[in-house]
């Protein structure tokens, strides 16, 4: 009777084996993530660097080293310079609007009211829809002939009659006029990122202890002062994170420009990612495309570092 009871713990230990060795287990669990990062980010990045220093094309992908010629050519190209400017401008403009709107929405959603869940659901909806489908929806909304926005404007008399505020023409041609096309891209960028930013802001706002706001109230601060002196400073780290996330998403986005304007009219809405695609894939000049895309790298690296630093700061508070 005593023999099996003695050997039993030994058997359990042997079977526990790998699951009990935390260092080995940790390596096993992290391995898929590392493999994924290497295969999907590391390899393409190295390829992009190699291509950008070569004369590779889709017809001849062999690598012949040409130094920094591709970068010099890109910088000399006015379309590239416009794309670079547009990328920065669209990103900053849309993200500033996003920060303001998401703060307003989050503040409203913090309150209790009837149908709150419905409003939350509707706000989250753009985030759950595939970005390409959502943008195609916007393509219809901004159609040069059948745009429902134009239809409404005509119906209320702001468009399509002599002396109307927005002109006598039947349509505004959102994607065909430079100013409107740029505004449309920014609008869709805002629409795209707003749900995520709102959720992040909501988390930030609800993390402020309630009695802190009450203390400020008792201390004599008006609502405006409470916002300025308590809410904004306390949510600044998380607001910055929302902003930086939005920057990354918008800075690298290809779909919105590709679906809505294809960079038109006459490259007025061209951005780095779309220009990379047109040059490198549709134009077949892999080396040029790679060089253009690498111009995104310093900005994205800087943003990534900022996000990590911000994240650490929020942990401390």
């Amino acid at each position, binding site marked *: 009777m005593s023999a099996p009871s003695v050997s039993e713990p030994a058997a359990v230990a042997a079977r526990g084996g790998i699951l009990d060795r935390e260092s080995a287990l940790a390596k096993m669990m992290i391995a898929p993530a590392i493999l994924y990062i290497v295969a999907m980010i590391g390899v393409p990045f190295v390829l992009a660097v190699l291509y950008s220093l070569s004369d590779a094309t889709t017809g001849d992908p062999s690598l012949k080293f040409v130094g920094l010629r591709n970068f010099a050519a890109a910088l000399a190209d006015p379309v590239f310079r416009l794309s670079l400017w547009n990328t920065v401008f669209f990103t900053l403009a849309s993200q500033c609007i996003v920060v303001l709107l998401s703060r307003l929405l989050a503040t409203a959603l913090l309150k209790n009211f009837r149908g709150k869940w419905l409003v939350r659901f509707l706000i989250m909806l753009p985030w759950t829809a595939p970005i390409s489908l959502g943008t195609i929806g916007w393509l219809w909304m901004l159609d040069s002939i059948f745009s429902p926005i134009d239809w409404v404007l005509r119906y209320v008399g702001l468009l399509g009659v002599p002396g109307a505020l927005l002109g006598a023409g039947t349509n505004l041609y959102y994607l065909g006029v430079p100013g409107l096309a740029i505004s449309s891209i920014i609008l869709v960028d805002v629409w795209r990122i707003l749900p995520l930013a709102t959720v992040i802001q909501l988390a930030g706002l609800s993390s402020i202890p309630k009695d802190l706001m009450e203390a400020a109230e008792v201390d004599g601060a008006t609502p405006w002062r409470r916002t300025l*002196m308590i809410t904004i400073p306390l949510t600044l780290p998380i607001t910055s994170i929302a902003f930086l996330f939005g920057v990354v998403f918008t800075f690298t986005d290809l779909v919105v420009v590709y679906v809505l304007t294809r960079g038109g009219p006459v490259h007025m809405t061209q951005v780095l990612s779309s220009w990379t695609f047109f040059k490198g894939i549709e134009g077949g000049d892999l080396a040029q495309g790679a060089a253009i895309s690498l111009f995104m790298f310093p900005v994205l690296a800087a943003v990534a570092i900022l996000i990590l630093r911000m994240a650490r700061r929020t942990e401390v508070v």
Partner: protein
Amino acid sequence: MGCVEIRGISKLFGNVRAVDHVDLATNEGEFLVLLGPSGCGKTTLLRMIAGIEEPTEGDMVIDGRVVTNLPPRLRDIAMVFQSYALYPHMTVYKNIAFPLRARGVEKEAVRKKVEWAAGMFKIERLLDRKPRELSGGERQRVALARAMVREPSVFLLDEPLSNLDALLRTSAREELRQFQRRVGVTTIYVTHDQVEAMGLGDRIVVMSQGRIRQIGTPMEIYLWPADTFVATFVGSPPMNLLDHGDTLLGFRPETFLPADAVEGSEGVVTYPFEVTYLEYLGAERLVYGTVGEKSHARHVVSRLPGSLTLPLAAGKAYPFAVALRDLRRFDKKSGLYKEGVSS
């Protein structure tokens, strides 16, 4: 200045009456303690005085002015929260300066006032630190300084000592009391700790289930409880209660002593006390046991001073007695105090 008057205040959360028709008035410069178990409505009442919570009915009057519908900043009150609610992103200096800056006080005047308040609580050397770099006791002082800096007419405190360790709590209690005496600001203090209430209060308001059970000095509350709730909530161990017809007889554990040790010029009542358990606490001994017939025996506690070295053993019965003047009578149905002494 500095008088708070509460007129028929009630507060409903859904169908729950958190505060139920409370009438209360403070005296000028008094230290009033709201005492009760958690959920009795004392904090809600304090928050209504502060203006953070709106009463469902009734009126709040501060210094003869009806403030029921005024926001907190127009009430001339200051409050210290249980969590202290220090602004984590501001230095101690900015925390203390906040109420002044919110009122648009000029910069130089702010500096003087902050230094005065910091000096009062001996935290001058902490002015450049952030709250997260402070200990619990230091945070509490900063919170007090922030509340005092603009010299409010009423000072509200919501369990400000509950986050301190036991040793610090005792010294903080003493400091708080001395400070309030010195400044003379009417203070309303919420606590569930009866020791704090007894030690700090000029008067104690005992609350239960949203209602006031008794208002009185610590001595009145302890010696002459208005009902069985107060009798058993205040005092540790609580007052002993024995059935006596339609009456409950109450007496404090320290008045229930071996018959030889009780001197009663007005007479004594003697009970056979069956000891079940003894606790030796150094300065005193707690003796647990029962009184009465087996079928309806009641649990009774006796607290013997350490100087009384009489040997007692569990499982044995001893004659114990209470002096008649220490005996209180309560109505069995309502629990209310009854006048007169009976044998």
